[in-house]
């Protein structure tokens, strides 16, 4: 039915099959829409957040998707600035995933604040000392950059390409993409860092507090590093999932291997620094606040196993797998390591947000527990639904994978 819109020379499923595929994602979006409506209409009392858990599930999701979406800026940086030509085969995927992650995060933030209509006060009454202001500025600008990077891909749609003006516009945009890649790299670097800084500067919250040099707490650099290590791996994961679902090879191994190798080095560096961070925190900041490492994991469901899981199973283990050439060349191991790394990053963000606030600083204060409501899950999962939907549409109608035709020649009928 929609065959004139499909890219030339590639095979796509039938319109009906595609329609059925989108249904679960549309259902997630509907669930999220209902939750958002309830939150906007009745207020944040629809959530289980409280005065104790001021930041909760949505902020975990936000920080996690922004880290996972870091593949866009980093791959762009490698492709256009460093000049790694093989990555041209995966840059479209990275940009689309980045766009999905950032726009999803922005939408979630819009619901998360108590006065969404006043959201623009961040820009109007900006407090330049707040790391969150830097995050907001950079994310907004970067989302625009991502949209600009996405436009030429959309304009490559078969039908749109027929319009001469659009084709020329898209082509010209392509030519100057390096400028946007550079801008994106600059913006991303700062907001990825500031997301870490946001927690690192909470000096009266000993779980999150980190020192550092000058105005930047260590978490600033750790967050940047962890994002550029896991972002490309998430791009690889999404590509592999698409390859699995479509039963096609879409990206040449050279691109995947190059990204995996760079991620392996970055991840290893990150893990080493993170170990130092933990040591510095355990033996420096924590005792200075009058606490011990164990005091943070004494109450509630937050055990020390979280740190072991984050560092050993989702940090050191994937770093080793990826560092060994045989490890990353093996498909199954590569996917396994990428999955572990992404889980580790989500876990890291969870620790920084939920556990930080769960642990009372006052010695006589009690521990409160928190479990998200269905409305909170609804908003969070809507981003997943939205991601699947946008990516599926992009895959179906746009030439996302430039080598798809070459790798999967359609048999002459």
């Amino acid at each position, binding site marked *: 039915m929609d065959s004139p819109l499909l890219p030339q020379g590639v095979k796509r499923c039938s319109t009906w099959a595609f329609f059925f595929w989108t249904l679960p994602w549309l259902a997630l979006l509907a669930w999220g829409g209902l939750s958002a409506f309830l939150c906007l209409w009745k207020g944040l009392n629809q959530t289980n957040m409280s005065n104790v858990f001021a930041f909760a599930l949505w902020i975990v999701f936000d920080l996690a998707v922004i880290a996972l979406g870091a593949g866009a800026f980093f791959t762009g940086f490698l492709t256009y600035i460093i000049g790694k030509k093989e990555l041209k085969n995966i840059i479209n995927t990275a940009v689309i995933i980045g766009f999905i992650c950032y726009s999803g995060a922005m939408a979630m933030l819009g619901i998360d604040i108590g006065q969404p209509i006043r959201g623009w*006060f961040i820009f109007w009454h900006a407090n330049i000392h707040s790391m969150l202001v830097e995050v907001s500025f950079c994310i907004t600008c970067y989302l625009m950059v991502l949209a600009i990077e996405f436009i030429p891909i959309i304009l490559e749609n078969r039908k749109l390409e027929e319009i001469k003006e659009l084709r020329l516009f898209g082509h010209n945009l392509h030519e100057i993409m390096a400028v946007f890649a550079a801008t994106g790299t600059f913006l991303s670097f700062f907001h990825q860092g500031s997301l870490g800084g946001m927690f690192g500067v909470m000096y009266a919250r000993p779980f999150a507090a980190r020192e550092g040099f000058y105005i930047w707490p260590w978490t600033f650099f750790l967050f940047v590093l962890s994002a550029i290590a896991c972002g490309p791996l998430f791009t690889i994961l999404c590509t592999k999932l698409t390859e699995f679902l479509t039963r096609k090879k879409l990206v040449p191994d050279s691109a995947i291997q190059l990204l995996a190798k760079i991620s392996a080095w970055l991840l290893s560096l990150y893990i080493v620094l993170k170990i130092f961070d933990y040591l510095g925190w355990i033996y420096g900041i924590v005792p200075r606040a009058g606490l*011990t490492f164990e*005091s943070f994991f004494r109450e509630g469901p937050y055990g020390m196993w979280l740190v072991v899981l984050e560092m050993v199973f989702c940090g050191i283990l994937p770093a080793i797998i990826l560092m060994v050439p045989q490890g990353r060349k093996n498909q199954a191991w590569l996917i396994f390591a990428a999955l572990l790394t992404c889980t580790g990053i989500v876990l890291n963000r969870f620790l920084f947000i939920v556990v930080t606030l769960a642990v009372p600083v006052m010695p006589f204060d009690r521990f409160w527990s928190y479990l998200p409501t269905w409305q909170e899950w609804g908003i969070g999962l809507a981003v997943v639904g939205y991601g699947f939907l946008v990516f599926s549409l992009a895959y179906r109608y746009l030439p996302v994978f430039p080598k798809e035709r070459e790798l999967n020649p359609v048999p002459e009928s």
Partner: protein
Amino acid sequence: MKKENDQGKVDQKYGMVIDLDKCTGCGTCMVACAAENNVSVRPDQSDKERTITWMRLYKITNGKEFPDSEVSYFPRPCMQCDHHPPCVSVCVSTATRLDTHTGIVSQIYTRCIGCRYCQAACPYGVRYFNWWDTYFPKDKGLERYLSPEVSPRMRGVVEKCTFCHHRLMRAKEQAYAEDRREIEEEEYQTACTQACPANAITFGDLNNPEHEVSKLSKHPFAFRLLERLGTEPKVYYLSSRDWVRKLGDNFLPGEYQPVVNKTWANQNWSTKPGRDTFSL
């Protein structure tokens, strides 16, 4: 540190000293604070994680069995942190700020976007988010209590204790009307200070050596909550009991130094002479 203003005068630094040995835990301060500051109520006030209590009373115990068990009540307003208040630097929209002339950390409700970063940053849990629409039951006569001097807060913003800042404004206006530049100690008092039947709360200018708070804050029994974090609260507590003082901060084993110097024990400003010998 005493700051000087443009005229070379030392600025005020309003603070509070709460004597925990005198506090009976009656809760009058909480009620007075809520009534004075138009704190809205909810039909069901049992949801402790979401109620709004600018002044909150904690019950603390020494954790011992009878007959050694002891209880103390711990009133907790906003500490009005003096040094780099954790809530101020993080606020995205400059909705909260430390007034260096008075030492009061104030909140502009109509500018708050409700991101709750300030709540996450404050270790004392004194910031309250308005999870619900404001509710002042009409048929209960509560609307008659509404003070025209304090703006009621809307849903979706963060609020907190302001040391009844409007009372300072009122006192200042009175002083200007009478052609005075300074206000007297008793002219500006917070609602909780006035309401406390046990006289456990003292309020005034910490920078003014004539004010009672300034003297009491130097009392050997004085301590501040979570002092080692470096927020420099302007709320001081007094307690002659070691276990209470110990609960004021997270002391690692062997770190706590008991107040053993008894030379003040018989002086009249000592709250409960001899109690510091209480063994842990």
